[in-house]
């Protein structure tokens, strides 16, 4: 039987929909992925096979062929694992829901059937929405990031088993609600850095203020001296990557 599910591939900041076409037919037991997959996509074969096995489903010993269309663009990364596994399960008849228009699957499989996070979820979801997608199945670990996108139903999933049961209507998953983050207030707390602690150096502070106000590039030329004002290492760690 043939099944078709969709996923998205990212080229820089732009996305293209990719159709994962799975066909299971009689013949020598075989598992082949075509459509310009690179090494990380080809390796998915082993992950999918084992993940399905460890979800207590017997993989049909038939000829399994997966085509990633359009077949003329290169596919890389581990985000194709989930759509390919779902494609196989639909083609095997394990998942009974076959209407998958306007739905995409993104996720990497672990051998035990867990769904691991992938990179680039936010741009993928934004691009998917632009391309007319309504529902996105994404790894649970990426849900925060995806919830920024308005008008796209995000289904965060943790295991292959869970996706299967959800699609068969046996289980409910809390859909991640859209979090309105239109109000962006840069808050730089959690570290005690403040210009007030810098003794003297008024001219440098002024120059940096002007640089920040006009977006000007700035070069500071100075003598090597330890006027570092007792920054703890902890502080400098926080400042380089401070998220809310």
């Amino acid at each position: 039987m043939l099944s078709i599910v969709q996923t998205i591939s990212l080229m820089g900041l732009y996305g293209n929909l990719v159709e994962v076409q799975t066909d299971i037919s009689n013949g020598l037991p075989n598992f082949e992925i075509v459509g310009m997959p690179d090494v990380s996509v080809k390796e998915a074969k082993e992950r999918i096979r084992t993940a399905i096995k460890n979800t207590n489903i017997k993989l049909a010993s038939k000829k399994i062929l997966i085509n990633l269309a359009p077949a003329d663009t290169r596919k890389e990364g581990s985000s194709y694992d989930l759509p390919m596994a779902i494609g196989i399960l639909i083609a095997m008849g394990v998942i009974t829901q076959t209407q998958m228009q306007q739905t995409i699957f993104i996720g990497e499989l672990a051998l035990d059937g867990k769904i691991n996070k992938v990179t680039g979820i936010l741009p993928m979801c934004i691009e998917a929405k632009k391309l007319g997608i309504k529902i996105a199945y994404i790894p649970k670990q990426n849900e925060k990031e995806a919830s920024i996108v308005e008008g796209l139903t995000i289904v965060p999933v943790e295991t292959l088993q869970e996706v299967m049961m959800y699609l068969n209507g046996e289980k409910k998953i809390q859909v991640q609600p859209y979090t309105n983050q239109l109000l962006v207030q840069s808050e730089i707390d959690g570290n005690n850095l403040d210009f007030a602690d810098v003794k003297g150096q008024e001219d440098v502070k002024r120059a940096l203020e002007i640089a920040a106000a006009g977006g000007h590039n700035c070069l500071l030329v100075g003598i090597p001296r330890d006027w570092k004002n007792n920054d703890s290492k902890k502080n400098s760690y926080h400042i380089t990557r401070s998220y809310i």
Partner: protein
Amino acid sequence: MIARRIPTILPDLTFEEALEITKLHSIAGCLKSETGLIKTRPFRTPHHTISAISMAGGGRVPKPGEISLAHYGVLYLDELPEFKRETLEVLRGPLEEKQVTISRVWASLTYPCHFMLIASMNPCPCGYYGSGIKECTCTPNAIQRYLAKISGPLLDRIDIQIQVKPVEYQKLGNNEIGEKSKDIRQRVNQARRIQQERYKPYSIMENSELTPRLIQMYCKLDNQGKNLLEKAFTTLGLSARAYTRILKVARTIADLEGKESIEVKHVAEAIQYRNRDK
């Protein structure tokens, strides 16, 4: 160090800016799972051993480099002359175009990189050239070689250049508290709002992005200012490229004060920030 405190005075992000920053970090794979939207401007401090490729971005399917991760934020390069020349030259195009196109066999991708470059360096290898507190022990040749690491075109793209003077002993000892970052940031935000309003039709956001035509429109000087600039040119021997830089910086200083026109004192202050190309 003072540079570490720069993020505390950077202006607020708009939603679109935050979204773009988050997208780039998401692609690079350095977004933590508990993070939704990144709400602070990035502050990237790559070590000077960084390669040109990790600076600009690269890989078989190119991933964003440091300059793209610093998008809408600050790229801080400490000890500028210690960076490989090749790495620094990579910055030239992106500084001007605010985007970088990386071509590899598999793909040719364009990532935005609208960052503010802040760099620090010593005036010479020993560090005391012109300091007035200790004699410099470097040979002229060594100083020349040290400074030659930074090419003219790169220096040309740096609007503000300032000499950091040693702190006097009295100031170290006293407990006087300087201005709070919060207050400075308020002024910065105000100045940014003025600029955003003014440049709405031109799809730019900051004074640093002004094109020659826009400089003519928005950086008009009064007679006093013109006279001062002319005098500065002849006596200090400023280069032609310094001219537009001074006008842009003067525009920002006027914006910080909320002034419509650039006054002579704004020009005077801006001239001070052309330290290196006298």
